[in-house]
């Protein structure tokens, strides 16, 4: 077997420059780019580089993070112009001959450095009734065939990181659009065979700010760190509205 193929720890360290978009309303300064040189290793992610900056150079650099491996959804940010999770973006996969640009996700108010106000995002999520609505009170588990379960598998993966919604050019315009993440989470229940309120959610999304605002730009699908086929899910919701049900 090819046990020796991967040489962990053998990748030498190298230097990269990060341009980080800084903003702190407390200091009265305009938003600006600040550059940092960091020594990193082959397995380091952008999050590691940000940590190195915070821990060794500038403690005031502020960003959210928790799990550090792409499952909690804390650290969506714009890296070299695209929404990514800092903890899932390996530095060696970026073009390291150029500086790496890191800035907050777009369309939500910036609170400080890379931290944005997520409340409008969460509100849109809550607005689509993201919970199972079923009237029966079964003694044991509700039965569900493997196929019915598969139907909505993709959209159960969402970690509410907002990478999709804040990559959407329609969302940027006025922040009123429900946004792909909310639709994804509605989709998760609309196509769950155990749920009884698909019509209600479809009605909610048949709103002026609902699915019809999607212009199929696919930024969301490309940004989603969980690989959810977001645009496809939105298309399925549109079809469900047209057909009058899921």
């Amino acid at each position, binding site marked *: 077997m090819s*046990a020796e193929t991967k040489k962990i720890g053998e990748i030498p360290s190298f230097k990269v420059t990060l341009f980080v978009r800084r903003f702190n309303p407390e200091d009265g300064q305009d938003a600006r780019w600040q550059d940092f040189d960091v020594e990193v290793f082959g397995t380091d992610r952008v999050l590691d580089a940000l940590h190195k900056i915070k821990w060794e150079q500038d403690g*005031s650099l502020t960003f959210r993070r*928790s799990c550090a491996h*792409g499952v909690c959804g*804390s650290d969506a940010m714009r890296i070299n112009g695209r929404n990514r999770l800092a903890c899932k973006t390996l530095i060696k996969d970026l073009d390291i001959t150029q500086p790496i640009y890191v800035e907050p996700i777009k369309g939500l108010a910036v*609170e400080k450095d890379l931290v944005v106000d997520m409340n409008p995002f969460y509100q849109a999520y809550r607005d689509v009734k993201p919970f199972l609505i079923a009237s029966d009170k079964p003694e044991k588990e509700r039965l569900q065939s493997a196929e019915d*379960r598969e139907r909505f598998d993709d959209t159960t993966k969402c970690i509410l990181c907002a990478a999709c919604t804040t990559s959407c050019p329609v969302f940027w315009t006025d922040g009123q659009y429900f946004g792909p993440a909310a639709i994804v989470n509605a989709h998760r229940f609309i196509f769950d065979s155990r749920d009884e309120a698909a019509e209600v959610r479809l009605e909610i999304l048949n709103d002026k700010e609902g699915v019809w605002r999607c212009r199929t730009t696919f930024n969301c699908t490309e940004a989603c760190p969980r690989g959810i086929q977001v645009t496809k899910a939105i298309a399925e919701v549109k079809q469900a509205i047209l057909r009058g049900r899921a």
Partner: protein
Amino acid sequence: MTKPRIHNYTYDVVIVGAGGAGMRAAIEAGPHAKTAVISKLFPTRSHTGAAQGGMAAALANVEEDSWEWHTFDTVKGGDYLVDQDAAEILAKESVQAVIDLENMGLPFNRTPDGKIDQRRFGGHTRDHGKAPVRRSCYAADRTGHMILQTLYQNCVKLGIEFYNEFYVLDLVMVGEGKKRRPSAVVAYELATGDLHVFQAKSIVFATGGFGKIFKTTSNAHTLTGDGVGIIYRKGLPLEDMEFYQFHPTGLAGLGILLSEAARGEGGILRNASGERFMERYAPTIKDLAPRDMVARAMANEVREGRGAGPNKDYVLLDLTHLPPEVIDAKLPDITEFARTYLGVEPYTEPVPVFPTAHYAMGGIPTNIKAEVLSDNKTVVPGLYAAGECACVSVHGANRLGTNSLLDINVFGKRAGIYAVEYAKTAQHVPVPADAASEVIAMIEKVRKAKGNEKVAVLRKELQDTMDKNAQVYRTEDSLNEALDKIAELRARYENISIQDKGERFNTDLLEAIELGFLLDLAEVLVVTARERRESRGGHYREDFETRNDKKFMVHSMAYLTDKKVKKPGENIKIDWKPVTITNYQPMERKY
């Protein structure tokens, strides 16, 4: 200094922590009492979401199973240090816990006839150890994610009140000795730097683990043990802190977890020469032996020079014989981790793995009603704990995989129920006028500190020493070395400074405060580990290689006595608490 703005609230039930345990409690409490959940993270960012493999319950959907067998496995897996009354509750209520989640909407994987599917997991056996049993209910390899999402969804449905990105930094206790009552918690709001005092009749701690005392860990950056630390600083005991679980299969060098489900689905551990070495250590269940055994076996292979890789410092998890469809259907996320972070293709290449600090068996001592204890027996009325921060103890010296997601659901639910029950009859304990003073002092001290030590440096040195001296293998000497180091770090901690002096989103400040908790908990862990002169479950002493039931068939209870003692470790008083045994007498643990 500007005077901090202080806001006051009154609730019946306040839950600290919005992970699985906290939200499960909230779902019970919310509809029956005025409830608030305070969390330093937005709820779905909690680390429950990282759990992969599954949740144990003897549903017997795919093969014969019973809660008694499950109890036995739990007790044996925990190297008999489990309180058996609690383990019985865990196993008995597991079925309902899973059904609850399914009814709330959790999308479990299904059997061909539409029932919840189950799979094998380490240490779970049929008929008292005869053969592995399929007991783990799962949703692909993101069971924890689904649990966390489902619980949050139901909190949204019930309109539970959340205070997110609020760091609870103190518990206000009123009275003396056994009459002490919790009256409020004090929280620091990340966004503004404001302080919030939440008065409540019942207070539930569900703040999760503290894996960040180690360097290589599967735990999130935010798992700094604040809740456990707060309880400890109040002079309340911590139970079984020496028992910390190291999960066998962390991605080498990174610690990111690859679930035991990988082995449950047939993955095999091999050393550099390709040998399936677990056959030597656990002939019956091989790769599915309990975690402590597998982790030690792996560490031993590496120690004895049979490790793989250029530095011979890891072993290999081999999935290449599994059909790619099975990998895609059942282990999609973890194989993705291997690809993303190590650039290894699990279809065709074995994945480099090494043990990673994973789970705290010990924590805040509670009884089966999730009530916090102030000594071996006495309950603190109105104070509850559940989840990884608590020690009931259902995990004893070593937790079985899938039993923690079960724990947070069973005891989270119980915490909610009993917190409401208490709040129905109890009166609020008046909040003293200076309730926030300790937190104000804590924050101002850090903010004003003008030393020259960096928080990150101290934290790293702490983590390094813990990995070196208090990991899978421990000795008196290594533990003393760790303790000396901690004492040194503690002194240097007095001499730190931070760069960010602002009020908005000051994570620089909070990291410093979190380090304070880490230092406390690391110290308790090391001291209790030093006192336990035997090897049991996750605690392995090379200088005392066998289990010693005569002397150590007891839980450790560690109390902070005097914060000002000079000699390292002397500020901690250790007491011992008997283990509750009902059906299963201690036996040698062989697999």
